[in-house]
């Protein structure tokens, strides 16, 4: 019953989100031709730089595969980035979630990671036909394996309940006791591939001060998240390539 009521409301929320985007679209549409041409030129330069990096990444991937084969390592997981628009945000007293216009039809499944340009956004909690609900990184029930950039020792990231009139944050626990943070050069907390949900090295947040945990063996720290986390318009869901291939094969078999 909940699903039925949810699905019948979903188109209305998509429509409302489009309506809310209308002023931004109109201001974009009013831009001059010369400014568009300038942006086009900048994009072309950026594309060229990315093409070069892509060629380099291809070589690196081949190298990695060769080394992996020599050492008999399991292959690294690869993801498709499926981009979708945010149509609703529930950042109320207890919950930190957003609804994205991507659903089961797009290959999204419960537990998939969600990212944006600045790093991790959250994890898919509910999947409907054309929409999914994402639990944000700042949600108190969000947990993920992480590590500090440049230090592969695993730590745990946990979201903290949203404080009053402040941007949401999180907490890192199980930080090694020998780790030192400089407020002028905060430590970058990144995702670890241990959880299997996110690729390695995506930014979670930054840590300025570390404090010892009660047991004295580890440290903990508040994590400053990207302040635009609650203002995102578009996000990408990480759909594992292997799973997508398996599902496509199953679908073709069932059709036959």
């Amino acid at each position, binding site marked *: 019953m909940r699903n039925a009521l949810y699905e019948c409301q979903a188109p209305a929320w998509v429509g409302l989100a489009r309506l809310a985007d209308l002023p931004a679209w109109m201001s974009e549409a009013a831009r001059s031709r010369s400014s568009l041409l300038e942006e086009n030129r900048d994009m072309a330069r950026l594309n060229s730089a990315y093409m070069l990096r892509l060629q380099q990444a291809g070589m690196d991937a081949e190298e990695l595969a060769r080394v992996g084969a020599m050492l008999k390592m399991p292959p690294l997981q690869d993801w498709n980035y499926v981009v979708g628009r945010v149509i609703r945000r529930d950042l109320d007293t207890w919950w930190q979630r957003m609804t994205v216009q991507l659903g089961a039809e797009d290959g999204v499944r419960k537990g998939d990671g969600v990212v944006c340009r600045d790093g991790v956004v959250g994890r898919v909690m509910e999947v409907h036909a054309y929409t999914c609900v994402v639990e944000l990184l700042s949600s108190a029930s969000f947990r993920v394996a992480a590590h500090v950039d440049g230090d592969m020792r695993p730590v745990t990231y946990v979201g903290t309940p949203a404080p009053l009139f402040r941007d*949401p944050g999180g907490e890192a626990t199980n930080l090694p006791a020998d780790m030192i943070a400089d407020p002028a050069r905060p430590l970058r907390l990144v995702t670890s591939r241990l959880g299997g949900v996110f690729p390695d090295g995506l930014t979670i947040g930054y840590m300025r001060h570390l404090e010892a945990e009660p047991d004295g063996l580890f440290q903990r720290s508040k994590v400053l998240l990207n302040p635009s986390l609650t203002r995102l318009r578009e996000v990408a869901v990480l759909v594992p390539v292997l799973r997508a291939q398996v599902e496509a094969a199953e679908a073709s078999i069932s059709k036959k």
Partner: protein
Amino acid sequence: MAARRRRASNARLWMPPLACLVLAALVQHACELLGESMLPGFWLHLDALYLVFPLLYLRFAHGLPQVAFTALMLDAMWPGPFGTRLVLYSLALAMMIPLRVRVRRENPLHVFWLASGMNLFVFAGFWLQTLLGPDALACVPLTRILTDLLVSELLVGFSAYWWMEFQRLVIFRSCGQDPAGFPIL
């Protein structure tokens, strides 16, 4: 023609829940905009606005289905357990039905206290539900909860009368019948 008139005369039965859903969408959007621009870490809970009109202008037999419909629609999008709003709204309505003869719906002050009380009841229900739920939800700072509650209470209190009168006006304009003219007992 007769069928059209009959449909129009039932506006008080189908229009309030639709108006409540539109209001809920507007409140949601307003909270999102507040969070984006000025006040991150703040949210409005205006649940009593969905209850005042059915309580003060409709019979229980007419008001309860409307409230149930609104509650279920809102529950479907809510992260908490499905049916929480249905139970809380129905309880609030059922508890206030015997007392509504003492409330003057023409008096904004009476409506202020009624709406604030019902909103407090519903908010307390949500709070209790989260306290009984996972541990992570139970550790939301008290300052955040109380500020959300206080501002929501004031806003609900001050806007309930005008929201109710707006619904009444819309029904009057659409079918020419004043909901105040129908018996509620």
